[in-house]
């Protein structure tokens, strides 16, 4: 049985009142909106896109609020840079979960994306969260940020985490919802990890990925799908430069993973409606990817029954792309 947690898009005065009441909050909103909040028990990050019960939308003057349940035994807000990010898992509670927000295009995000699986404690503690961003028409102009409401820090080069300790009998559970699946076809592998790739192996033969994508006319709005022992893990395309022979990605590829191009999805809203129904337990937290919002033209449309921020990357133990992440708090009775 899952525990219901209050999570909704809220006005700034309502959030201010919740903070004044001493509630512990995990927030998503524009920099302007988050900057109007007093210090208190909250962490958050910049984003202006949201899934709501009425449909997906952009809002600068509202904040998506996830309230940490009152039965949480302890909450601890900590920020990390690349130099101490390995401490994230060590600081995580034995029973509980950690909300984390990392700024897009930051060194700390790159470190997390490439190294999280090597950190001591990886998978032993549910790490859930997202990558903060900016309005898409302000990419390259504004900078994504994260906020530590406890200290008052606003950071563009560090991430913020909220470690939440749960009592015995409650357990956090992470779920990945991916509307994409392997389209079959050529097998793509990489010999070294990275966000920037040129050479790869296609069906075992050396090739240039940018040339391959261009020559085949492969649409890059759909991700590469990595096979993680049967779970599909996406890597999305940022840019393909055929002249330079380079491909930039929103998450790193890894050596040892079998990748295929995704089977195209025509109706994103319908795909989410099928993947996430009202019969599913209501999550304590969920987020979806800005690329699904943009490529799927989700503005004004529902993403199944999901509500939550629409983000520049999703975190469920590791960085994910074009994916829904859900956190559930289970009551073990």
């Amino acid at each position, binding site marked *: 049985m899952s525990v219901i947690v209050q999570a909704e898009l809220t006005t700034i005065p309502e959030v201010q009142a919740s903070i004044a009441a001493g509630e512990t909050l995990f927030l998503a909103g524009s920099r302007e909106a988050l900057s109007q909040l007093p210090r208190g028990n909250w962490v958050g990050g910049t984003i202006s896109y949201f899934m709501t019960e009425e449909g997906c939308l952009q809002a600068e003057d509202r904040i998506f609020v996830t309230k940490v349940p009152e039965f949480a035994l302890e909450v601890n807000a900590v920020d990390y840079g690349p130099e101490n990010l390995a401490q994230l898992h060590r600081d995580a509670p034995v029973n509980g979960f950690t909300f984390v927000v990392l700024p897009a295009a930051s060194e700390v995000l790159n470190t997390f994306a490439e190294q999280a*699986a090597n950190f001591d404690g*990886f*998978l*032993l503690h549910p790490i859930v969260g997202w990558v903060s961003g900016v309005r898409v028409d302000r990419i390259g102009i504004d900078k994504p940020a994260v906020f530590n409401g406890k200290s008052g820090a606003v950071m563009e080069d560090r991430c913020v985490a909220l470690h939440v300790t749960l009592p015995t009998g409650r*357990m956090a559970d992470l779920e*990945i919802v991916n509307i994409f699946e392997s389209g079959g076809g050529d097998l793509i592998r990489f010999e070294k990890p990275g966000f920037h790739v040129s050479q790869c192996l296609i069906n075992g033969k050396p090739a240039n990925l940018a040339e391959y994508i261009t020559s085949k006319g492969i649409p890059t709005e759909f991700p590469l799908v990595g096979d*993680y*022992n049967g779970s599909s*893990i996406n890597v999305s395309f940022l840019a393909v430069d055929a002249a330079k022979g380079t491909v930039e990605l929103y998450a790193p590829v890894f*050596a040892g993973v079998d990748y295929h191009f995704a089977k195209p999805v025509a109706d994103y809203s319908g795909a989410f409606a099928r993947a996430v129904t009202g019969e599913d337990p209501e999550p304590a937290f969920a987020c979806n990817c800005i690329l699904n919002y943009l490529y799927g033209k989700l503005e004004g449309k529902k993403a199944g029954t999901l509500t939550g921020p629409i983000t520049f990357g999703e975190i469920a133990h590791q960085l994910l792309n074009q994916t829904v992440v859900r956190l559930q708090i289970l009551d073990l009775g």
Partner: protein
Amino acid sequence: MIPPIDHPVWVQFITGEKTITSSKATINLLVQNNKMGYERDTSPANIKELISRAHKFFTQFESVFPNEIAQITG
């Protein structure tokens, strides 16, 4: 019941000789990361390290993943 850390099934699990299937992403991330870690370095020291991580994981989540543990021990 989790096999002791020196039980041969853990070497089989890490080297891919013993495979498991699961609908749980956390399990599949663990299995894939073991596979990648083993492909990177097949030394006994690395296998020992990978076994240590896997054993710690299944010990902590013994009650959560009984079907997956049964596949390892079976």
